[in-house]
């Protein structure tokens, strides 16, 4: 008999709406955190559009998952233990998807939408891509199907993963007890991830468990002495949701069409964001370190740390 599991994102959506309204009231009352009605309108519109886009391409992605499941190595049943294992492995896959989405421009073109707000609140959590399938984000989860986790189970834990990530998009929650901050992705850790400060760029890629960042060397704690500046290195000039959804794809098309060798064109497509303008995370962080640490600057001058 086929097992059916609930669509947790659909079940959680009324809660999302209620929590956004509650957060607005609490931000107004406490003065902690920030909202802008134009920014929230864009975020919520992008969220709705993302759902529509998901419905349009869901069949193609389901076909890819089903095909991968056809090559499964094991027959894993739907059970509590397989659900727990799948949840952890899904989060590991999410970490690598997310890290790649920040380091490779093609993947970034889909993910940049989520970072395009200069605010950090619960509506930012709903500011989601319309072009995730085009950006190939689904390929990172194919190994789970090849291992033999049933599609219904992977989709279920994927929903749980997404729902978990909703509540961490807030400035209202400070730091949580030590063990929580040590193991779980928290509002504090994820604020860092949304920062455009050189110190915070491309850090804390975790979905649910921050241990992946600690393990793979991408963890950065929130520093109270350096408030997070939310948004992009090059922020959007307005609130047009269409431009927010497609601007990086337009940038890729423009840059690939520019004169240059094929290797250069490939780098504009698959290199790190900012490759053509010298504004990669690596370059920005080196400039910042040179400014803030004269010893590093001297090393730079002598070429020891040449990129």
């Amino acid at each position: 008999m086929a097992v059916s599991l609930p669509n947790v994102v659909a079940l959680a959506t009324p809660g999302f709406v209620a929590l956004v309204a509650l957060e607005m009231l609490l931000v107004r009352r406490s003065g902690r955190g920030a909202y802008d009605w134009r920014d929230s309108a864009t975020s919520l519109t992008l969220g709705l559009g993302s759902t529509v886009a998901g419905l349009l391409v869901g069949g193609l992605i389901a076909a890819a998952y089903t095909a991968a499941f056809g090559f499964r190595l094991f027959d894993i049943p739907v059970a509590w233990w397989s659900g727990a294992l799948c949840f952890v492995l899904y989060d590991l896959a999410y970490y690598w998807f997310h890290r790649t989405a920040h380091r490779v421009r093609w993947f970034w073109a889909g993910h940049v939408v989520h970072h395009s707000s200069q605010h950090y609140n619960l509506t930012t959590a709903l500011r989601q891509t319309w072009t995730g399938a085009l950006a190939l984000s689904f390929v990172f989860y194919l190994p789970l199907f090849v291992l033999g986790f049933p599609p219904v189970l992977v989709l279920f834990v994927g929903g749980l993963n997404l729902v978990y990530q909703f509540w961490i998009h807030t400035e209202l929650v400070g730091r949580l007890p030590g063990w929580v901050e040590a193991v779980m992705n928290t509002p504090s850790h994820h604020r860092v991830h949304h920062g455009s400060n050189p110190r915070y760029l491309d850090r804390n890629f975790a979905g649910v468990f921050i241990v992946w960042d600690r393990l793979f060397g991408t963890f950065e704690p929130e520093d109270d002495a350096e408030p997070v500046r939310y948004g992009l290195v090059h922020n959007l000039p307005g609130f047009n949701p269409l431009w927010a959804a497609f601007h990086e794809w337009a940038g890729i098309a423009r840059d690939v069409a520019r004169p240059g060798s094929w290797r250069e064109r490939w780098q504009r497509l698959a290199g790190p964001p900012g490759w053509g303008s010298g504004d990669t995370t690596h370059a920005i962080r080196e400039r910042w370190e040179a400014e803030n640490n004269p010893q590093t600057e001297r090393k730079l001058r002598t070429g020891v740390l040449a990129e």
Partner: protein
Amino acid sequence: MTLFLASLVAIALLVGLCWALGFRDAPVLADAAAAERVADAALTGFRAAKVALAADGRGALLKGRDGRLVAVRPVGDRWLVREVSGARAAAGRIVLPREPGARAFSLDLGGVPAWL
């Protein structure tokens, strides 16, 4: 379709609540130093040599020590910082090049700075 319409209604209600709660500020630069701080934070390593502040504090034009021309202008209740080329004077205002996805924007600097 019902779910889609319900989602549109929910969005309208949340945006309306946001507006009604007063989250519709327009930022103002108090002085040239504030403009420098905003530009420096957004462009790592940028140091201003000259600053022209808009008469109403709703933006600024800065010339860097390295010769870069940088505009600071509002987007909602936040600032947008851009290196600009092709800024021009028209009717006593400095008109910034129009970007895709944004409306045209100009600054009233009380005249054209000599260094522009």
